[in-house]
């Protein structure tokens, strides 16, 4: 068993984190400003802002916030409620406290208004940051690491350099026993048969194919795929072309299971995250942007996110660090301060795919050992959570658990 780090943050529930973040969480847009004001003075001390804007309750968003607030990288949580929104704040508070994390709830309507709630919240953060200095540490094995991958701002280079480079890193991480998660079934349209041939069981092969069929139907109803104008400017022409490039992020390991947002795999291996809602098309686009996908990967336990970009995304994330792997050498020169890995150098004969894969692997381990990524240094903490609905996954989705 390979040791990843001797001093991971040990949580009350036994899980281990690579960051010790305080999450300030608004439970409706009406509490967003107060939450942001509480967080702002501490933004460079690993205090992150996240939340849910909707006023009406939704099982998916509730589950997402339960999982995110008890994520291994999170040490403590402050919840901000206006007071009349539909979110089950008491259920969330209890779930966080049950996970062994310090948590507090401030209800603005019962706390004297904006100024008083901000002052109370800031006092709580100051006190909690001092307490978190005493967080117990423990050795963490590579087998306990969860890594998610996403691509955004893709172009014609993404599928040649950054995505297959991440695939190489994923192959090494999976053989080390780590958990790796790839996603966006809508960006796998056209690859479903090739992907199904890598499933750990025939039943899972069928489930993987069905998940892509569901995505294709969903997007057909919306009349729009997961394809932005910048993709076409960058040389990508069709959804299935973008898919083939995106698919290569998964590497070549066997696929151990299919998970849905908030499912945390119980053992290492490669998992497909199905992000497209079940049932009739209800709440619009499955994911309105890359940050919504990143939030789902983190809710599935990802400690680190590998983000492949060609056109040049600059985002990071709340809770888990994002490593930006730049596919396009021209973009890298233009946005070098935002990038962590220059994968596009392959196109200029300044490196091989194997070298880029090794660099991504090493950067993943370095980040897990506390090294800051470009987006962390620049203060990026994007977070997006919307409405969705899912059916639970069945036993056929996890053939390796039996």
């Amino acid at each position: 068993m390979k040791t990843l780090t001797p001093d991971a943050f040990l949580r009350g529930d036994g899980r281990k984190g690579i960051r010790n973040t305080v999450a300030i969480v608004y439970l409706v847009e009406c509490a967003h400003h107060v939450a942001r004001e509480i967080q702002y003075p501490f933004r460079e001390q690993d205090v992150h802002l996240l939340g849910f804007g909707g006023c009406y309750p939704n099982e998916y968003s509730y589950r997402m916030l339960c999982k995110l607030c008890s994520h291994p990288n999170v040490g403590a949580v402050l919840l901000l409620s206006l007071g009349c929104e539909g979110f089950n704040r008491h259920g969330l508070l209890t779930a966080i406290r049950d996970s062994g994390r310090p948590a507090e709830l401030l209800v603005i309507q019962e706390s004297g208004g904006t100024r008083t709630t901000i002052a109370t919240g800031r006092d709580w953060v100051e006190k909690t940051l001092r307490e978190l200095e005493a967080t117990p540490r423990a050795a963490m094995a590579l087998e306990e690491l969860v890594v998610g991958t996403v691509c955004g701002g893709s172009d014609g280079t993404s599928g040649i350099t950054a995505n297959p480079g991440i695939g190489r890193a994923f192959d090494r991480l999976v053989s080390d026993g780590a958990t790796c998660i790839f996603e966006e079934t809508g960006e796998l349209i056209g690859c479903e048969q090739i992907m199904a041939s890598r499933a750990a069981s025939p039943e899972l092969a069928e489930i993987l194919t069905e998940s892509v069929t569901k995505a294709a139907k969903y997007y057909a109803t919306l009349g729009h795929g997961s394809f932005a104008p910048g993709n076409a400017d960058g040389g990508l022409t069709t959804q299935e072309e973008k898919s083939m490039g995106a698919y290569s992020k998964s590497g070549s390991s066997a696929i151990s299971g299919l998970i849905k947002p908030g499912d945390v795999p119980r053992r290492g291996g490669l998992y497909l995250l199905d992000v497209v809602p079940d049932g009739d098309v209800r709440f619009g686009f499955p994911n309105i942007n890359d940050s919504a996908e990143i939030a789902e990967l983190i809710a599935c336990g990802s400690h680190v996110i590998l983000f492949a970009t060609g056109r040049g995304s600059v985002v990071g994330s709340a809770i888990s660090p994002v490593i930006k792997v730049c596919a396009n050498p021209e973009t890298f020169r233009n946005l070098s301060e935002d990038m962590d890995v220059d994968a596009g150098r392959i196109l200029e004969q300044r490196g091989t795919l194997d070298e880029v894969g090794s660099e991504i692997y090493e950067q993943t381990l370095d980040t897990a050992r506390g090294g800051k990524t470009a987006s962390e240094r620049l203060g990026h903490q994007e977070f997006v959570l919307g409405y969705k609905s899912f059916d639970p996954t069945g036993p056929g989705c996890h053939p390796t658990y039996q």
Partner: protein
Amino acid sequence: MDTIQLSPGDNIVVLTKSVAEGSGVSIEDRVFYLPVALGLGHKVAARAIRKGDKIIKYGAPIGSATRDIAAGEHVHLHNMKSDYLPTFTLEAAHTFHRTT
């Protein structure tokens, strides 16, 4: 090397650098002169492709030709389409606003 063939059976190659209008790109042992400037990552036909044929990249179909395409021609939205979903571009929106 200004183009790359990603898989042996592909009928397109990908540009590994941005090229200016009128410049030549080599595909296998032939040189083709491009009538338009093309960005890094764009596709060029490696051989003649008939209307209705699949466009093959990574050894897999990524759509179909909507008209005959000559070897050395830019392959993109104007001469191929998805077999699954329509592709939306800002250009289409701009054209709409220019004409209405």
